[in-house]
């Protein structure tokens, strides 16, 4: 072996070279496989047409980018109105939640598991700081002196925007079905808003189904519980579907709030409410795709879409 450092030399016994070659090839195979799984998304590709609208809200005093995914074979003159899913966090960085839901809907339509369904994504035409729009719109008013970065507490106004401005706009442009075939999907703070929207149900509620994935029930020390209490005295009996999920790796605060909230919901037995909760063995981001996928299945199996 040449041990003198007087030239560029690659000197190694043949058996060592063979061992290192085998190790290097195995490593390439293993990491190439890992790289492929990194590149592949965890949801199907969305099909159909996607249209974009910019909608100004006088209630919130802000603009929204509204993305509307229309199913393959969409008929604007259809006499059978389409079920519709309203999706939050459309354009929050890499989370891509609109395409997650649109992808799962596309796949299930193709497999004839659900009827043709419109997906409406509610996004923001800007991307300032840590999600300025979602922090304002998805959070409930603070009652326990929580300190936050940016404006919060806009859930009531955002709910009214959806009820009084967005849904009428969508109905004007697309043949969507009534409240019993409309759902709202949200994850994290979006899940908190979906939970809040559920607690606002009354005889005029515009949406009959909710999927709250990994909801941030910890916000402001659990103030969402006050809205659950107020729902219990409102004596509403219209049909409502609620599907909640959590990742069991999301830590004690997320999980214990979730367990307690679900048990209180079940124990109360709200008339007309059909409820289900699921936990996944994953973290906060890992619940997005399975929650929306399983939420779609559960909602349509419990009457959202009607018979195919």
């Amino acid at each position, binding site marked *: 072996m040449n041990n003198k450092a007087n030239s560029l030399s690659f000197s190694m016994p043949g058996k060592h070279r063979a061992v290192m070659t085998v190790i290097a090839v195995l490593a390439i195979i293993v990491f190439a496989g890992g790289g492929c799984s990194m590149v592949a998304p965890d949801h199907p590709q969305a099909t159909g047409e996607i249209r974009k609208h910019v909608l100004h809200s006088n209630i919130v005093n802000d603009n929204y980018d509204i993305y509307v995914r229309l199913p393959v074979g969409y008929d604007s003159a259809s006499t059978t109105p389409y079920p519709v899913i309203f999706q939050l966090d459309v354009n929050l960085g890499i989370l891509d939640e609109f395409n997650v839901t649109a992808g799962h809907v596309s796949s299930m339509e193709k497999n004839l598991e659900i009827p043709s369904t419109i997906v409406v994504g509610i996004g923001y035409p800007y991307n300032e700081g840590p999600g300025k729009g979602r922090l304002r719109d998805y959070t409930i008013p603070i009652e326990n002196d929580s300190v936050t970065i940016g404006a919060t507490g806009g859930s009531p106004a955002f709910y009214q925007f959806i009820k009084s401005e967005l849904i009428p706009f969508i109905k004007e442009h697309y043949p969507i079905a009534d409240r019993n075939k409309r759902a709202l999907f949200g994850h994290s703070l979006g899940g908190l808003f979906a939970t809040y929207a559920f607690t606002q149900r009354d005889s005029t509620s515009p949406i009959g189904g909710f999927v709250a994935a990994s909801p941030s029930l910890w916000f402001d*020390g659990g103030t969402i519980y006050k809205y659950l209490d107020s729902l219990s005295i409102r004596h509403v009996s219209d049909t409502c579907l609620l599907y909640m999920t959590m990742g069991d790796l999301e*830590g004690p605060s997320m999980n214990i709030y979730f367990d307690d909230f679900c048990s209180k919901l079940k124990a109360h037995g709200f008339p007309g409410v059909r409820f289900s909760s699921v936990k996944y063995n994953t973290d906060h981001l*890992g619940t997005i795709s399975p929650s929306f996928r399983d939420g779609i299945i559960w909602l349509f199996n419990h009457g959202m879409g009607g018979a195919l």
Partner: protein
Amino acid sequence: MKLNLITAMSLVIASAFSSLAITDSIPSKYITAGLYGCYGFSGYQAYGAGADVTNAWRIWNHKLTSGTFDAGFIAGYQREPFSQANSILNGAEALGAGHRIEGLLTIGSTAYIPPSRRILCGVGVFGGWAHIIMRGYFSNSRYNISGDYKADKGVWASGIDAHFGVRATDRISIVARSLVPLPYAPVPVTSYLIALLGVTIDFHKQHI
């Protein structure tokens, strides 16, 4: 004389310090053992320790630089207290911690560069098992909520391994190392990044 742990460590370190001068060359084959302090980040911070053993073969030897092919194993542990979330829980409290352990095979290459091949830098890949054991407790007296929390998960972990160091002597180096898991795995299990800082000792299998 009964050898205790401190005495044994002293003997090992003394033998490694047999020559304080640094030789401007790298052995053709050697084994490195290292002890590190660990820092992990998964959205929250974790601290712990790690140890590794690496077999190195010199594969190039130029006038100014040398390089090795390395194959080894690294084991690590980090503790991530749940109390880090308490500042946003507004009066509620989370107790306990997540305990993260890793057993990873590593392969890569290290270059030794001037002056005197004192600086070392290397890159490689790792693959192995990462496991999180989470045990805690949460309470919110405002709404009378409380409960024990428990979760476990293990995953295959793979990613990029990079290290940089300085040879203090022929056998002892101070090394900073980072392990970046790729592709995406549940972050509480693998964390976004594990950074290590420690000391390695070379045991020369073949003299220079």
